[in-house]
Each structure stands twice: as structure tokens, then as C-alpha cells.
């Protein structure tokens, strides 16, 4: 075993993760290697100091309200989705009715009617394109969080 191998063992030794036999092997190496034994002292001290750091406990009220906060946000997110779907449906219905009325109106010129239909076709293409892009990003964003 090289000193590099002992350095990994050193961490396990400090953290109390070594079996009796590996512990003995490590202690024997420390006896014979000054570099590792100096480093060991430093790491041991660092580990003790780091272990002493404890966080200030937040007030109990934070934990009491924690779930409610998460829940409110999930609820709000659902609310926004429903609201958006309903708005799109209503707008589409209203728009359709208005366009139908114009197309049926004999007093409106043919060119104006044609222009209106082309405008709608253009808007539809744009909508589908943006929607596809959003779905693409949404999918990729979702998998970013989940490694398997």
C-alpha cells in the first residue's frame, strides 16, 4: 500500500469507520511514516473542530408552519394551472364566436375575411411552436433533477 492509500484509510480512521484489523494496519503505518503521522494530527484536529459546529435551532414555530408553507405553494401552483387552462378555453371560445360572426357577415369584404383567416393561421402556427418549445424545456428540466 502507498501513502495515498493510507490517506483514504486516514479519513475512515478519523470517522470511526474502520474495522479492528484495518485500524491496526493504519496505526502501524503511522509509527513508520512521519509524513502521514503529521498529516493525521492535523486532520484529527480539523475533524474535532468541525464536529463542534452545531446550528442554531430555528424557532419551533418555523417547523410548525413548514408543512403548511409547502402545502400552500403546491395548492397555489395547482390553482395557477387550472386558472390558465380556463382562461385559454374562454379566450379561444370568445375568439371563435367573434370570427364566426365576421365571416358570416355579408357586409364585410372578401379580402378582409381572407386576411383574418391568414392571421389566425399564423397565430396558430406560432402558438404550436411556442408550446413545443415549452414542453421540450419542461421535460429536460424535469429530468435534470432526477438522476435515474
Amino acid at each position, binding site marked *: 500500500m502507498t501513502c495515498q492509500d493510507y*490517506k483514504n484509510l486516514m479519513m475512515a480512521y478519523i470517522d470511526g469507520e474502520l474495522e479492528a484489523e484495518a485500524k491496526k494496519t493504519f496505526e502501524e503505518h503511522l509509527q513508520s511514516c512521519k509524513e502521514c503521522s503529521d498529516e493525521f494530527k492535523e486532520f484529527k484536529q*480539523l475533524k474535532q473542530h468541525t464536529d463542534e*459546529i452545531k446550528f*442554531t435551532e430555528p424557532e419551533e414555530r418555523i417547523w410548525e408552519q413548514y408543512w403548511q408553507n409547502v402545502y400552500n405553494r403546491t395548492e397555489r401552483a395547482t390553482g395557477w394551472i387550472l386558472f390558465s387552462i380556463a382562461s385559454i378555453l374562454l379566450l379561444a371560445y370568445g375568439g371563435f364566436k367573434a370570427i364566426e360572426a365576421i365571416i358570416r357577415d355579408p357586409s364585410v369584404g372578401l379580402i378582409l375575411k381572407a386576411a383574418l383567416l391568414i392571421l389566425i393561421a399564423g397565430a396558430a402556427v406560432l402558438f404550436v411552436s411556442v408550446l413545443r418549445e415549452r414542453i421540450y424545456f419542461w421535460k429536460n428540466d424535469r429530468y435534470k*433533477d*432526477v*438522476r435515474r
Partner: protein
Amino acid sequence: MNGTDNQILQARSSAAMFETCVMKYMKDSYRIALGFCGNHQDALELSQEAFLKAYRSIRHLQNNDKFFPWFYQILRNLCFDYMRKKKTQAAQPLDEITSEKLMQNNFDPEAIAERNETKEIIWKAIGQLDEKHREIIILRHFLNQSYEQIAKNLFCSKGTVMSRLYYGRRQLKEILSTMKGGH
């Protein structure tokens, strides 16, 4: 800790079951976030945001008894994003790093119980660690996880945990000696 996760998640997205999960892991989630961002307010926000994201994609969780490692991936990604944003805000050339600058990160000393100078300096130094190194220190010291638990949460081997701990602690020692050198 895994025995009851299965039970908890049997009803999956049902709000009551998800609530049990949040209650069980909220403190761990908060402590992890605090180790990454260094202040109470952002830690609370990040940890709750992670649960919200988890709730939305809980149907993608393949194996119910792996809730925590799965949730941890969501939380750490949020924290890493947060750190990257902070980093670009405070970008500075390496050769200009002084002990004063090292003490000026947003690691709030108020977050530490029974404060003293040694604890404050180490806390500030943790705030200077790279994300991967900081992560291993958080899981080992602030969550008190065993090598086996850390390996599960990071989807790596125990050997990798050991070598990351070695490099993480070595970086921490280097930062600490730079800080002390400047005084």
C-alpha cells in the same frame, strides 16, 4: 431510516402521505441547505422549494424506499444553482484573494450555536469550499451520516466517499491556513 419510507410512499402523491415525508425530512433538508447557502432565510426557502419540486415529480420515483437519496438529488441541484448564481455575483480573480475577502462571504455567523472565534472561522471557510467538497463535509458533519449513507445519497462507492472527504478536508485546511496567514 428506509424501513418506513416504503410505508409513507405507498399512497404516493396523496397529500397526507407526502405530509408525513415532509415532516420527517424537513430538518435534514434545512440543515443541508444551510450548509450550502450559509443563512437561515435562504436555507428555509431552498429546502421548501425542493419539497415543492419533489411533490411535482413524485410519480417519477421508481423505488419507494429510496425517497431520501432521490429527494437529495433535487435539493442539491437547487443548492448548486443557488451557489452558481452567488458566485457569478461575487466573481473575483484568484490572485486577489486575501484573508479579509475570505471572511466576507454570506455565511452568517448567527447560524452557529454557541459561537466562538474558531467555530466562526471554520464556518466561513466551509463557505469557501467548492460545491462537491462542501457537500461531503455537510453530509458527514452536519447530518452525521455514515460512509454507507453518504455513498447511497451520492450514488457512489465508499471508496469515493473516502477520497472526496480527504480532498474536501484538505481544501478546508488550505483555506483555513490562508485565513490565519492574513491576520
